[in-house]
């Protein structure tokens, strides 16, 4: 198992500091969701955790060691990232895509070991893509495409999976489908899942731990029922709302105020 944490992290982008002195520990084996308004830095934080951005100060630690000094392949065996709206090359099949998840385990002579084969099959099975392995990814529906990409990150066999807005561009049915799948992966294999979501209600349903980010700082964090109040939403999103209980799961559910005419 692996513990991922940000220690005194500062990240700058084109000379402007997005974060300064940020400390955050990702709970192990849980689903953590980052929420926040556009441009608050939640994607930047996720990318820093995956070492795609170099900290200006501080560090990201995995099990106590600084990830920026770890060999790329070692890190890739423990932590994978699915970026927002990934693009597949023309004609690439699902199998060929999922196979790429084995990159950190391969060498130029060893490109399809028995372990590779097992991991790829397991990933395809876990995402329910068995019938579609020969289809080209660009011919699939949005939801299936996202499943194929998740299968690729699964083939990487990491304890921690980071996902940047995995439900963007999907209709509601497929959003639920993808989140159910991630929940299942977390339940069954105990994988740590960290993702950025826009939909607060879905975030409350699926997250064990919510991190609300505002202006490059952690505004509040904790269990959805503990942190999601009208005051939190008003500060983080500048949105007046009421918080009621989700009729199915009892998790917090926000109802935005808006300026619609009153009945």
């Amino acid at each position, binding site marked *: 198992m692996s513990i991922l944490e940000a220690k005194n992290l500062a990240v700058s982008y084109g000379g402007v500091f997005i974060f300064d002195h940020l400390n955050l520990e990702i709970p192990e084996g849980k689903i953590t969701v980052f929420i926040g308004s556009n441009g608050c830095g939640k994607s930047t934080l996720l*990318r820093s955790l*995956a*070492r*795609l951005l170099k900290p200006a100060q501080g560090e990201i630690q995995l099990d106590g060691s600084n990830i920026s000094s770890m060999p*790329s*392949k*070692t*890190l*890739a*065996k423990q*932590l*994978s*990232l*699915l*970026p927002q709206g*990934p*693009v*597949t*090359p*023309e*004609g*690439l*099949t699902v*199998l*060929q*895509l999922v*196979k*790429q*998840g084995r*990159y*950190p385990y*391969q060498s*130029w*002579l*060893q*490109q*399809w*070991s*028995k372990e*590779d*084969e097992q991991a790829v099959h397991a990933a395809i099975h876990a995402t329910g893509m068995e019938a579609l*392995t*020969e289809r*080209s990814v660009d011919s699939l529906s949005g939801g299936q495409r996202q499943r194929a990409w998740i299968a690729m990150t699964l083939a*990487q066999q990491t304890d921690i999976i*980071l996902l940047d807005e995995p439900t963007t561009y999907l209709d509601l049915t497929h959003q639920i489908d993808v989140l159910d799948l991630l929940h299942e992966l977390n339940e069954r294999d105990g994988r740590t899942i960290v993702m950025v979501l826009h939909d607060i209600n879905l975030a409350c349903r699926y997250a064990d731990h919510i991190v609300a980010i505002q202006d490059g700082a952690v505004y509040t964090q904790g269990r959805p029922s503990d942190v999601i109040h009208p005051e939190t939403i008003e500060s983080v999103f500048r949105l007046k709302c009421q918080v009621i209980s989700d009729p199915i799961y009892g998790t917090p559910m926000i109802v935005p105020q808006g300026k619609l005419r009153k009945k």
Partner: protein
Amino acid sequence: MSKYTPLRWNKTKLSFLIEKRTLWIIAALLVLCATLVVISTGIGSKYVSPLEVIQSIAGKGSSMNEVIIMKLRLPRILIAVLVGASLAVAGAVLQGIIRNPLASPDVTGITEGASLGTVLFVFFLSEKVSIQWAPLAAIGGAFVVTALLYLLSWKNGASPLRMILIGTGLSAAFKSISYMFIISGSFILANKSMIFMTGSIYGSSWEKDVSTLLPWVLILLPLTWIQSRHVNVQALGDDVAASAGANVQLHRLILLLLSVALAGAAVAIGGAITFIGLMAPHIARKLVGSSFGGLLPVSALLGALILLISDLIARTLFAPLDIPAGVFTAAIGVPFFLYLLYRNRNA
């Protein structure tokens, strides 16, 4: 998954996953290429039957056929194969790492750099130094353009989009400089340079051309092929590649250098033959998909085929006039290029 055959030698830990369809396509293209080599070697001012061509190649033909086949025609045919294959692979690599379907040695300025290198050589050095050194000037030119391309598109790493934009600009700039020399120079030098800039493999010989290009191709093609999985992972985007554990910038530089070396060597021998680097990988992708392990050999064979056919047309259609083969690769290439642009019009 019966469409795939896993290849494993457990003792050496060697393991690959091979798609059967790709193997069949490679085999078919090999046969097609070999057949075309034999047939087109036979065609010319004196017709030699395919059987006699094979006899001559095996060293059992008549002495007259031997001279025609072995001395005059075969070197040129082999150069067509080598140049076509090199340009196609250079293009396939560029399209993979730049992730742009329009990327190719001629669009990113590599071909134009090599051309300018040769034009400068023709203008300033050809009276003092043997023409045998011209390939070095071409390869030098190709690398100068690449260095510029990298310098100008670097901003926390070389991004694919900046590379294609700056490459297009460099290509135009280098081409104009070449034309400036040609227009201002003497007629003979200008003519020599023009033929080179169109791309001609007229008068190829064993000693000068085949023996220069063959080692490059024999070393660079396998070297590029073993980089396949790096191309594959980069094709998924820089973020995905990096989080899968790839050293994206290092591999991009290595692959770019391999591509430049292949394109530079091919242009040095065959002149600025355009469109093969663009076209062959696209057709290959339609045949075997974009997985690079299969794409590379199929592109190479298709590149060889296109140049073989273009050169056959170029030297027979208006015989005894020998037109540069580059004219015909462009003639095939332009409609294809327009078709691609038309298809991508909404993208």
